[in-house]
């Protein structure tokens, strides 16, 4: 079955009443869990998993995929409005999104996000249709040495992601790396730095740290400076729509974001958070208005939010083309297939064409639904900002506490919030940047794991890190990006300070 026939067949399946409802409910539930900080697509999918067992597998999968990409639409809402990233991937959106809100452009930013998410989502579906087999063959070229090169490079490159001096980025990143060493070590299972607290064994919960670092620290800042959090907001339709200039500046970042997100998502190694960071870094390097990044540039929202949607969609490729889940979310989807007796593997597409093409077609439909759903909602979200600060701040505190608790049902994560919040507040006061700390925490364990796996595979021979063409190419790209970063630096620093 070629792609076009397959797609037509898929639409025939996706357009049945039952599957349309599944796509819509999935997308709606996804938007809601995305908007709530802490509760992410993983929690949402885990909640509906038992329900999907009683439907046919295609319907269940359509609903779960809907939650997954729906959450990417909603995930940035709180990041932009109140500086609370819904998940690690949206941490970078806070930088410019929140600045836009302070300038009264919250509505425009949210509309751009909806549009970017649509572009990223639908273009990535095209990629799934045509490139799945090729992409999964390419993924086999990447093993531990290649991922090590890529992630270590990412660590260095992204430490400068939010500008400032070299130390302002490197120091928080190092703190993030240190935090990442807490808990059960991945290769030997040895417990590190948990001091007898078994709850620390999985390590610091990423969501709790991210919320503490951004949201709690920001609220402390607001209270300390007695600053009104945003410019007076109006919710007239005219203010919801981005200006022609904003649209024009968003097009190129969206296209670049789609490409970056698709590649990062399809590779089984890097986490999806890396895609939005990579897109932001790319904008810093190539966008025409790059000097405005960090002060409320629309590119800083359009690129990363498009990238994380493209990445979310592309992570389905390893699952659909090879039957290998590379994240908790795709593992859940796999589990729902297995309970129906469907063995995932390279033959999934051939043996279960209804499932594959039905899902692909439903993602087109779901993305259209999401845009229709999200654009009118922008007004609703923005009007929340008119709530007076003395009600608003306690409300957000409550929301962050629920969010942190809901990830693992652990009180430890709740206590972590004020603690990390204080760290974030102090670091911020001292002029350090917080985003690199998230990068250190996300990538640290992965860098370590791939380093050790590579060395076990090679029997301790360090040569393995440059023994394959892909690894050498990766190092070369990293070196070039780093050198360019330093060469371009003087001008940017001048603009920065």
């Amino acid at each position, binding site marked *: 079955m070629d792609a076009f026939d397959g797609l037509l067949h898929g639409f025939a399946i996706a357009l049945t009443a039952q599957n349309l409802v599944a796509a819509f409910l999935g997308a709606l539930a996804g938007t809601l869990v995305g908007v709530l900080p802490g509760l992410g697509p993983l929690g949402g999918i885990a909640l509906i998993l038992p329900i999907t067992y009683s439907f046919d597998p295609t319907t269940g999968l359509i609903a779960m995929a809907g939650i997954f990409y729906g959450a990417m639409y909603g995930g940035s809402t709180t990041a932009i409005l109140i500086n609370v990233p819904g998940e690690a991937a949206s941490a970078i959106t806070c930088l410019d999104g929140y600045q836009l809100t302070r300038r009264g452009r919250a509505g425009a930013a949210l509309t751009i996000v909806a549009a970017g998410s649509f572009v990223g989502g639908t273009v990535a579906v095209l990629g799934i249709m045509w490139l799945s087999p090729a992409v999964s063959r390419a993924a*086999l070229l990447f093993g531990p040495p290649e991922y090590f090169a890529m992630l270590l490079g990412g660590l260095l490159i992204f430490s400068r992601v939010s500008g400032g001096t070299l130390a302002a980025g490197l120091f928080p990143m190092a703190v993030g790396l240190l935090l990442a060493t807490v808990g*059960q070590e991945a290769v030997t299972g040895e417990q590190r730095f948990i001091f007898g607290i*078994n709850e620390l064994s*999985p390590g610091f919960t990423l969501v709790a740290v991210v919320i503490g670092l951004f949201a709690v620290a920001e609220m402390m800042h607001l209270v300390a400076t007695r600053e009104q959090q945003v410019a007076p907001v109006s919710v007239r339709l005219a203010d919801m729509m981005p200006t022609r200039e904003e649209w024009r500046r968003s097009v190129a970042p969206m296209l670049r974001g789609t490409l970056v997100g698709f590649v990062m998502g399809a590779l089984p190694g890097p986490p999806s958070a890396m895609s939005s960071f990579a897109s932001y870094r790319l904008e810093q390097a190539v966008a025409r208005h790059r000097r405005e990044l960090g002060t409320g540039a629309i590119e800083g929202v359009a690129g990363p939010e498009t990238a994380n949607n493209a990445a979310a969609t592309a992570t389905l490729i390893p699952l659909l083309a090879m039957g290998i889940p590379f994240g908790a979310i795709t593992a859940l989807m796999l589990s729902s297939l297995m*309970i129906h007796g469907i063995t995932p*593997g*390279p033959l999934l597409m051939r043996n279960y064409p209804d499932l594959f093409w039905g899902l692909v077609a439903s993602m087109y439909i779901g993305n259209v639904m999401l845009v229709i759903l999200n654009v009118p909602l922008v007004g609703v979200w923005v009007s929340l900002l008119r709530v007076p600060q003395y009600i608003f701040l306690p409300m957000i505190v409550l929301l962050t506490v629920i969010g942190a608790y809901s990830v693992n049902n652990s009180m430890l994560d709740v206590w972590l919030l004020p603690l990390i919040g204080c760290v974030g507040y102090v670091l911020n006061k001292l002029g350090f940047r917080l985003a690199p700390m998230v990068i250190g925490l996300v990538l640290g364990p992965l860098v370590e*794991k791939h380093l050790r796996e590579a060395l076990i595979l090679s029997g301790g021979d360090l040569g393995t890190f440059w023994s394959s063409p892909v690894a050498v190419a990766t190092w070369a790209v990293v070196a070039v990006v780093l050198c360019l970063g330093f060469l371009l630096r003087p001008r940017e620093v001048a603009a920065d300070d």
Partner: protein
Amino acid sequence: MKTLTRRQFGLAAAAFAGAAASPLAQAAGYPERDITFINPWSPGGSTDAIVRQYAKQMEKVLGGSIVVQNLTGASGTLGVGTVVRARPDGYTIGYAGNGTLVYQPMVMKGLAWSRPDDLQPIAKLNSMPTLLAVRGDSPVRTWTDFVAQLRSRPGQVRVGVAGLRTSADLEMQQVNMAAHLRMRIVPFTGGSGESVLALLGGRVEAMAGYTDGLRGHVDAGAMRIVAVFQKGRYEPFPDASPVGDQPDFTSATLLPACNYVIGPRGMPPDVLDRLVTGSRQVVTSEEFKAFAQRGGLVLDPMAPDEVRSELLRVAGTYERLIRFLHPDKA
């Protein structure tokens, strides 16, 4: 947020209504409220599928709801510890594998249990024999070929497993010990998916895993199952050499991943009886058999006492293995 919870509640209620209305529902005292079933592993993967299937059928048998809760962390010991420490009223039970029940207490301090007597086995759900897979284009076709390869290149043949001291890793270490072989066991940390990629990408010569993660690749011709670590033919892969029948290996050296239902010690006898007979009814049902066959699971129903003695037997094997792996600690 409100809409979400209300709808979820509605859907969940609708899903459970079917179970409650079933003719098998009984009016006996137990269960009067929801039973919490703790799965110490994350949602997704083969464990979760087994647990959900069991819970689904058990709801019908008991005539009450079972809420599956995934309480993960610390190699499954957090979830199992919660079950062991729970109030023994039959409303908190859970899932546990032999690795978590027997191996972890030997290497971790401060757990709520140390021997099989510290908890109440309810049923044995299934076992899964370990499989040895090579790439589809590999010249290795049988266990004898594989051993010959190991002997000609000692310490050079790499075998991927889904993590250090996971069931597959222990099985391979066990083989190294029993047959004086030297395969280089590579623990991948991202679950079995990573070792699958490594095998397909030619970074390891073989991998040890289980039916659910391998069958798709075997069907596609990308992999071949060379050996199965059990006695007798394994139906899903009839061509695989049964290692348990080889002269060097006795059944005592085989370590299949076994899955049990457990509860805290000291449950009221009538409640325990409902759980034990109900579980047996589920495990021996045609529906469960069909489910097991699809997933390549081996069913071996056992009463609580039989589970205890099986766990004790496994403990002996693990002790020998730990002495082999860490001669300094013994």
